[in-house]
């Protein structure tokens, strides 16, 4: 059995950042990563646009990962276990299989930092046959960027998430023809800059309120029937058209996968654990951060969040986390997708609350109130659901419930 203060599950940006922070705050850390190298999904994201907030310069995914990796490797308080997968979490004991063989690791604090996974064809009940050529954008990205192989040459992309947009450009640059990006929603969840740089610059049409009705092809994708959907997302049959293609790339959302810790309550909105001010789940020794907690917009925000959580976990492991006073519920109006954390504690000081809007807002103010008293507010020129926003709330004197609203 291996013993440690903090055990971090996942060696992507969240895991590396949380491990560094926990170590800097005085804990011995074991970092478990299932792949052969640290970095997680960043290693296959060879495009740029990372690090603008965290490092104040524009980096590629592998560069961003490299900077963190170097810091982790230098840190003598962090033991990295590569090629190692956690198979079970039970009462501060974690079962692993990997470079250490079949082992048990006991930790005072366990931090979930496994990231998320892509939603699959099954998650959207994609109709039609099941031939080769239907793949998630992440799989396509791995084939092209890591394996150096072309998954297809006539591509339709379903969903306009950021990886889908990035892959539209990537596949085009490698010689494929991307015929269209179909988005069932009236807006894209992808970043504005990606729509411009990945689609508009390459004249790739982005069709809103469109989806695939049926995939055709026995062994290989031969094409798709696609068309418009109505307000209830039901296909409008009269708009149905056939588009020949050999590949369907899916970019239909990301979701945290909490199966390893299915014993803690999970939010129906984020699919991640429900956490308090210190990012503790319902088990006080189990923390969560990064995309396993809620899918972030930028890796920079993942790293920043993990940095905070590393401190909390480290303090907890050393028995120094402030004793929890009376809880204050953090509620929100229907204008929000979600607000996180959902519980803060009475006392002095500021607490950072993260949220996503449900719909686009223009020139509005986000207000945090407690019993009618405004604690903090933030003016938003143009807010979109794709963007993660933050509000620092001074919680001095707040009791019972804090509510966020848009005014």
């Amino acid at each position, binding site marked *: 059995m291996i013993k440690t203060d903090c055990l971090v599950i996942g060696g992507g940006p969240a895991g590396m950042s949380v491990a560094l922070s926990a170590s800097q705050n005085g804990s011995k850390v074991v970092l478990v990563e299932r792949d052969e190298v640290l970095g997680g999904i960043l290693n296959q994201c060879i495009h740029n646009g990372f690090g603008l907030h965290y490092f104040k310069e524009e980096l590629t995914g592998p560069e961003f990962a490299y900077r963190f990796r170097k810091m982790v490797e230098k840190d003598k308080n962090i033991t990295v276990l590569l090629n190692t997968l956690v198979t079970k979490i039970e009462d501060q004991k974690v079962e692993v299989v990997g*470079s250490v063989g*079949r082992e048990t690791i006991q930790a005072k604090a366990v931090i979930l930092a496994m990231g998320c996974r892509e939603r699959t064809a099954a998650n959207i009940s994609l109709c039609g046959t099941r031939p*080769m050529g239907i793949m998630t954008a992440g799989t396509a990205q791995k084939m092209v960027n890591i394996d150096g192989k072309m998954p297809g040459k006539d591509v339709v992309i379903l969903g306009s998430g950021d990886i889908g947009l990035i892959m539209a450009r990537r596949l085009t640059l490698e010689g494929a023809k991307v015929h269209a990006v179909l988005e069932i929603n009236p807006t894209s969840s992808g970043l504005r800059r990606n729509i411009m740089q990945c689609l508009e610059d390459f004249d790739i049409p982005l069709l809103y309120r469109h989806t695939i009705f049926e995939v055709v092809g026995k062994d290989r994708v031969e094409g798709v029937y696609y068309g418009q959907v109505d307000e209830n997302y039901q296909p409008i049959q009269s708009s149905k058209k056939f588009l020949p293609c050999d590949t369907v790339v899916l970019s239909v959302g990301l979701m945290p996968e909490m199966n390893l810790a299915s014993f803690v309550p999970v939010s129906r909105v984020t699919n991640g654990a429900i956490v308090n001010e210190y990012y503790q789940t319902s088990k006080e020794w189990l923390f969560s951060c990064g995309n396993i907690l809620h899918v972030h917009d930028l890796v920079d925000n993942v790293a920043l969040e993990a940095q905070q959580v590393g401190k909390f976990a480290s303090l907890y492991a050393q028995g120094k986390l402030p004793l929890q006073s009376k809880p204050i519920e953090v509620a929100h109006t229907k204008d929000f997708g979600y607000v996180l954390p959902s519980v803060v504690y009475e006392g002095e000081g500021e607490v950072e609350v993260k949220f996503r809007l449900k719909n686009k807002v223009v020139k509005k103010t986000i207000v945090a109130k407690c019993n009618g008293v405004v604690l903090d507010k933030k003016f938003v020129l143009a807010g979109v659901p794709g963007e993660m926003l933050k509000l620092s709330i001074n919680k001095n004197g707040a009791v019972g419930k804090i509510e966020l609203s848009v005014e």
Partner: protein
Amino acid sequence: MSKNNVFDVLIVGGGVVGACVLNKLTRIGKKCLLIDKASDVATGASKANSGLVHAGYDPKPNTLKAKLNIRGNKLYPKLCKRLGVKLDKCGALVLGDDETQLDNLYQRGLENKVYVEKWDRKQILEKVPDLADHITCALYARDAYIVSPYFFTISVADEAVLNGAKVSLEEDLVSVEKKDDIFEVVTKKAIYYAKQIVNSAGAGYNEVAKLLKAEEYPLEFRRGEYFVFDKIKDFNVPCTLFTMPTKLGKGVLITPTIDGNFLLGPTSTESDTQTKVTSEGLDEIRNKAQLIVKNINFRNAIRQFSGVRVISGDDFVVEKSKVADGVINIAGICSPGLTSAPAIAEMVTKLLGFSLKEKENLKLLKKRVLFKELSKAKQIQLCKENKNYCSIVCKCEEITKGDVIEALNRPIKVASVDAVKRRCNAGMGRCQGGFCFTKVVAQIIKERKIAYEQVKKENRGSEVCLSDIREVNND
């Protein structure tokens, strides 16, 4: 043609029936060859069905279906034990709200000499707490089992190969001529000689029958769509739950699978041979699910698939051809085909003029034990002995590199991602191969010593990539 090159029996079609025939004939000492156009055995209806070994209360008494179902059901436990294939004797309930209907089914069960009981709602609730409200009664069939239909078929074929049978995949039949009582079978790959031929080509039966100059039958295809659910235990389904046909039409079934998932389906729609899922089919299942158990959460569905059943009239066709001497016709093996397959093999053996007595000293297939199924102590030991077991390829199903290597080194050598999936479950979990697809491809390349471009998802034409990057010609 030398005598050595002549097979006693050539079997066309490597579904569960063809595989069982191959296995039985090999075990009685016959020299056999099985050919299939696909890149693996069990790629048709045998891979896409409910995975049920039916008790036999359902078929009309004295039909071939009834006889073969009941005999097949009796053969399964011993056969699975020998093959090391998991069989769960979970039993089945046929749920309904009409006592008369239940009585009829019960009588049929008794006539077919199947162990059945009549249950009331209270009894059912003890076993199925989430039961739908309108259900008042059920027929309980004790001897209904669940099995992995594809892994069973693979194991049956593998065991035959281990004992000297030959399986040749990706074969396209060109012509069949009979010369001096010997069939000359020409495929695009080779010429084979055989004394007798078994046509178990399933959906392709008539195409093969034409070449054999044997009887062709009007075949009807029915598509059955299914949902596969994650292993999360939202509700408790301890056994297979069928529904009696009611005023609302024919119901669907829900069953645990041998791997711990749940299957919900099938629909039954007249179709061609395309295995596709449709929004109508999925909606039908969603609606009918509520008639079985409450609280099914479709967010936990991890896949939808469909299989096509081949139907030829009311009963199975298993017969000696009256027009083509030396040919055995097997057609229209729909449900309960999986259950009946071992019994069909016995029947075919007799039709071919052989005795059922098996040879001695036959080899036993090495039982598949996945890493995740081992005790912790054994896992620790195996990890020390072989590093491949310390490396997890598929995280959802916890399948190690060692498991994948074993899958690729079974008697029948395969080179497709789906074939690996059927042998060790890699890619069968909730992310549906999102993480492990390229890792499995890498392992196939290594074990088979082939190029990336040659690895297939399933059959010819499903190669996983086109070329290296920047080699695409898109003029």
